[in-house]
């Protein structure tokens, strides 16, 4: 993996994060400001000075660019939170499974297989329909998808680490299992966890968009990329910009996270190549 690809990924993610944080300053309009006289306006790069919509307006005259900028808040926060929660759950379970083996490993491996065998999107729709939407439920449901990524990688690493001399030596002088896991195994698997986290964040951003698209996302009143995409679908032949630009935002963010993850993977876990 070439470093400049990783740099591009980093820049894309940094831009998204910056826009999300600075949304009130960066967005030219309020994202919910309706202007029925300016409905379905195409992208307008005309002379400055008069109100214009760089990426056009939607069916009730809201500025698409402003909504994308505000929508970044949802994508970034949901992606980061889902990856983070998944990392905590998956790393904990993976470490225990790999280190203790036996019954613990059997149970965790079984959970991983169940999770992988399940059609996740269907499961997520079901859960969110039952729980109702909202930030916390969406993050929890997404973490249900991402924890497996962490658990699998961490479990196999913990298994090989357990056979290392320094783990045996630490046990031989009485270092207890909790301390071994926290102080000896966790730091050793952390590089992999970081790599998996960036891929999982990409996955979570994409899945969140899909859930919003399907109408079970965070909150229909908050602009989100997936919901914009869904709305734009109805106007695809009249107003291509309504769906295209949110789609582009999703694609670039996911691409950024994947590029960064790939580069980190090559840097932090040098094997072969």
């Amino acid at each position, binding site marked *: 993996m070439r470093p400049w690809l990783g740099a591009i990924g980093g820049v894309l993610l940094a831009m998204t994060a910056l826009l999300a944080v600075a949304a009130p300053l960066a967005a030219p309009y309020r994202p919910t400001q309706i202007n029925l006289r300016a409905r379905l306006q195409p992208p307008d790069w005309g002379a400055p000075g008069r109100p214009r919509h760089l990426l056009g307006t939607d069916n009730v005259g809201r500025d698409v660019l402003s909504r994308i900028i505000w929508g970044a808040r949802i994508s970034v926060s949901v992606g980061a939170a889902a990856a983070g929660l998944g990392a905590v759950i998956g790393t904990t379970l993976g470490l225990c499974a790999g280190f203790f*083996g*036996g019954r613990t490993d059997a149970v965790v491996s079984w959970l991983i297989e169940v999770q992988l065998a399940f059609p996740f999107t269907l499961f997520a729709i079901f859960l969110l329909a039952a729980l109702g939407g909202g930030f916390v439920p969406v993050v929890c449901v997404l973490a249900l998808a991402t924890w497996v990524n962490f658990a699998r990688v961490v479990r196999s690493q913990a298994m090989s680490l357990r*056979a*290392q*001399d*320094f783990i*045996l*030596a*630490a*046990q*031989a*002088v*009485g*270092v*207890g*299992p909790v*301390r071994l896991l926290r*102080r*000896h195994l966790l*730091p*050793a698997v952390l590089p992999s966890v970081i790599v998996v986290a960036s891929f999982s964040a990409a996955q979570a951003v994409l899945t969140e968009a899909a859930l919003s698209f399907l109408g079970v996302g965070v909150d229909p009143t908050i602009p989100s990329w997936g919901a914009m995409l869904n709305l734009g679908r109805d106007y695809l032949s009249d107003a291509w910009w309504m769906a295209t630009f949110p789609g582009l935002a999703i694609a670039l963010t996911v691409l950024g996270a994947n590029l960064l993850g790939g580069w980190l993977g090559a840097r932090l876990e040098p094997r072969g190549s």
Partner: protein
Amino acid sequence: MTAALLDIERLQVRFGQTVAVADASLRVAKGEAVGIVGESGSGKSATVLAAMRLHPPGASVTASRLSLDGHDVRTLPDRRMASLRGGFAAMIFQDPLTALNPLMAVGRQIAEVVAAHRGLRGGQARAAAILLMERVGIGDAAVRAHHFPHQFSGGMRQRVMIAAALAGDPALLIADEPTTALDVTVQADIVRLIRRLRAERDMGLVWVTHDLALMAGIVDRVVVMYAGRVMETAPVDALYAAPRHPYTVALLASLRRDGVQAEASGAPVPPGGCAFAPRCPARMARCDTAPPMLRAGGTEAACWTLAA
């Protein structure tokens, strides 16, 4: 009578079909130093690992007795076992580079053992770790405590491991080939260090090595192992002066390099026979059945030649 530090009787360790230890018995009294010698694969490491319940998960361990400080190692709860490790019996390993966590400063690695056994926290544990490093002869310990294992030489790393092993003030130190990975001059330093520490605190010692020459001056008694069995056990002087088992004789001869034992050249023995018979110069018909431990003076050896 106080319990032996370590008491192993008729220990057997198997990995599936492979027998690592076929029949080993070993007793270490308080303050005693015992050497276990044998070539690689003779089961000496597997024996001491099983005694610490640190054998690999797949291994099956059976024994008629297996106890540390009078506690049965096979049935002791994990928590008690963990406090026994390091607190009563600590173990150090051959390669101090792989046996230290490469991601952790050495001071912290020692301090966590202090914390586990003496209940000291934070700054107190760190201070205790620095004292331990000074005691094992690491100069400038306060600074060196912040360094990582790769910043130490082999001998210094082994000192770090010894410091960690001493942190819980154990009554028994088990050293598994502690000098094998070191230069000869450094070997002598480590031997001297362990001898000094043992004298200071009346600590029992099990010294596992393939190097018979190294034993003199360290241990009181030697256990010779071959193919997972104890061949001979004798006071160290008696072993050098009058080895009883042909394998011990061959081992001593190889030390002097005047009669290196040939590879297994004799006819194989039937199962249950003496494992050394195919290489043995004194083989006789009775060797097709395994000899018991036979006594001759202070020495015990598993050889029919003693029965004559």
